[in-house]
């Protein structure tokens, strides 16, 4: 088809496009295939004295096929997150984001408050952990690591597991 502009319209070049494939209606209205939502919630402090620790519920919802369960919930403590981070750092080539700080100061004795068991601190840490795990779990390469799946979806962390990839096929 030849174009007859009367000279004042935009040049032919400036409206050029490639013809595109028509999207099917099913695709157009399908729910996005990238749903992944991880909440770190419900912190609970257990035990007393030296055995005292706080853990959090790590609740996952997704439609990504790489995750065995579309919904899962496990309880993890800070040191578990540290473990995950170390595993990823060692085995994958990704830049693993940092964890929220260790709060050494809060671990000092003779504090007037509850140290790392203060509500405000737990909340702050919770947010940090949530942001961390969402960053990590959304990473295509991290998603290949066994440790991530165990961390998110298996009720107990087996630290003696055999590291490996799960999407090699």
């Amino acid at each position: 088809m030849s174009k007859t502009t009367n000279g004042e319209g935009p040049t032919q070049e400036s409206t050029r496009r490639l013809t595109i494939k028509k999207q099917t209606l099913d695709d157009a209205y399908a729910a996005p295939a990238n749903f992944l939502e991880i909440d770190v919630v419900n912190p609970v402090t257990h035990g007393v004295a030296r055995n005292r620790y706080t853990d959090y519920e790590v609740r996952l919802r997704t439609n990504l096929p790489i995750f065995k369960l579309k919904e899962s919930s496990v309880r993890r403590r800070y040191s578990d997150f540290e473990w995950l981070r170390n595993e990823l750092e060692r085995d994958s080539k990704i830049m693993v984001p940092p964890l929220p700080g260790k709060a050494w100061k809060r671990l000092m004795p003779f504090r007037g408050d509850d140290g790392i068991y203060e509500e405000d601190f737990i909340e702050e840490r919770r947010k940090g952990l949530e942001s961390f795990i969402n960053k990590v779990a959304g990473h295509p390469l991290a998603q290949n690591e066994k440790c991530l799946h165990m961390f998110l979806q298996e009720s107990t962390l087996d630290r003696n597991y055999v590291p490996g990839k799960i999407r090699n096929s």
Partner: protein
Amino acid sequence: MSTTPATTPSDDKQEKRLDESLGNVKIQSFHMKCCLDRGKLMEALKHASNMITELRTNQLSPKSYYELYMAVCDQLRHMEMYLLDEFNRGRKLADLYELVQYAGNIIPRLYLLITVGLVYMKTTPGSRRDILKDLVEMCRGVQHPLRGLFLRNYLLQSCRNILPDVTVEEIAGDGDGKEEHSGTIEDSIEFILLNFAEMNKLWVRMQHQGHTRDKDRREKERLELRLLVGTNLVRLSQLESIDIERYKNVVLPGILEQVVSCRDGIAQEYLMECLIQVFPDEFHLTTLQPFLHSCAKLVPSVNVKNIIIALIDRLALSKDIDLPDDLFDIFSSQISNIIQSRPDMILEDIISMEGSLINFTIKKINAESKREESIDSVLQSTLNVIKEKCNKARIQYRTNIGKELLKFLKLPITHGTQDGQTSGIAPIKMSLKLKVFKNLLKDVTDLELQKQITLSLLNSALDSGIEDKIIEENRLTLEEIEIFLSELCEPLVKGAAPEELDGMLDEDFVDEQLLLSRFIHYLLSPICVAEDDLDFKYLIISSCKKILAPGGAKRVRFTFPALVFESLDLALKYSKRGSEEDAKWDKKCTKIYQFVNQTISALNESNCPDICLRLYLQAALNASKVGLKTCETLADEFVTKAVSIYEEEICETKERFSSLILIIGAIKEIDFKSAELKQPFASQMPLLASKLIQKPNQVRAILSSSLLFCDDSTISPEAIKCIKKCVKIASSMMDNDLKLQLYIEILAHITLLVSQENQELLEQMKDLNEKILEQKNEVILSESLEKQYNATLNFLQSQNISLDK
């Protein structure tokens, strides 16, 4: 765990962010305008781009974003005006469309491209087709739902006045091909449909943005944005070159395809209603099948009934267009189709959908028989659905379904008549004409719901009263009356009556029965039967009795009296006709009295002797006035029954006194010619009176009975005997006040008789007066007694009767 959302701080934040953005828009637009004033277009574009950059934010709620968007659009209009001026002054800006595409960010780039594109399209119509296509395609680059929706809305709003609205045929004449590039209606349709599809996609996708926990809020926000998407449909509806054919073949399929496929409740419900609202009735009429067919395919969360009702109501209100004959059938079958395809649809919705169909029938089907047939068919399919869904359980009045069904059932009976008559007998007539109506009422509803319909039918008849315009066709046949009473009024005329509580009947029950009794009168009013059709009236009365009698004592107590009164009235009317008009009038009257007699006897089972007594007396009085040969015998018989009820069944003191007074009055009124009949009653009355418990009552009753011994010409000795007896009783009273009162009453009573000179009576009066005066020394008279006494004295004085000894 607290779930209260922290609304205030985030609202504050929103406001702050919005203010910041608006501030930047203000600054950049100021610079933009300064540059334009100085003719520095490139600089101005740069500032415009900076200004639009504010719309890249993802920090604002849809509401705030909208505000920002409006501010930016306002400013872009300046740019547009400037460019238009430049173009019109002959400045060539051929590469401007290219130039703005250098903007590094897509949002500013596309807003500018649209603005510039619009200027081209306005000044160079030959560029329209290409630019329209280009703009709507390039906007694909914005996939972010909120930003994409607003961008495409800007596109749509900008192009609203330049969308080609001519057909190929209209421009074919010129044949130089130029016009083709300025576009045809086909281009506009393609443009809007594509824009609509993309916007709907973004709108639907918006639900997936952000955290699951905010889904509710998001859906609310999504709803707020619906107009953005709907504007596409509005635009289409404003294109005049879209005729029915184009609508049917291109526009509607294009829209429905998106609506059905998006499988999103909010979008589907809104867009379907939007379609109904924006396009004209003729279009809907031509496309009912595909439209309704699509309704059946909507997701379960869509309230399809709202859509169907909106459509039906819309067509029901249509004016100036001819509706096709098969419209009802189409609706009807498509509604069935929808019900079939949506097994989860709740019954309330089904019923209200069918209701709108009835509404349509009433408004749009003029031929009476066809209309009733149609309503019946709606009733039938509703009945079927209810049966299927309820699985033999009855619909309870006090449920939502019950309320919906009640509303539904009232539709045909309150609005189902042709000349807008929605009251009087018409609703009842309609309820009987519709074959399925009573089935629906009897088969699937509980008694309470059924009763509500009955009451509403009765009330609508009675409220309009007998002054209503008489429409003879609306009168009920005897068969109809019988069906109505026995079947439609079943909840009122049959079944277990409520238990009495402390001797009192349930108030509602009483009201209902009273309503029924009023209705009996209504049935015999000129609305329902010709004034002179006495035979028919008799048939009605006796039918009523047959139907009401099984209702039991507690019911007939309220309804039978009405039958008795109507019967007696009928007897009077027959008697007025006399033998010249109706040879059998006397036989008919006799039959009526037999009927009356039976009815009152039956009523007497209801433990209401007071009513029966009065009715007997009424019957006696009535019979005495009818010129039958047997009238005195009949009256005698009725009075005798009343007396025997008095003697046997009336016990309460007050009631006995007033009953006796009534009996005496009736006997006096009947005024038997035959002494043989009269004498026994006359002599019986003082006896009965003296048996009353309270002396004042004895006195008063004996005084009344004394009148039975008097007539205009004579005062029989028995009358004087009665008066003496009264004085004696009064004298025996211990209470001086009462004694004096009775004296005064007796004296007053005697004045009734003084028209005839009677020495004995005069003596009596003098004695009595002496007693009064004597007594007055001891007792202070009440004001009213004093008045009565003075009035008596005055009267006697006027008759020249002196009580002085």
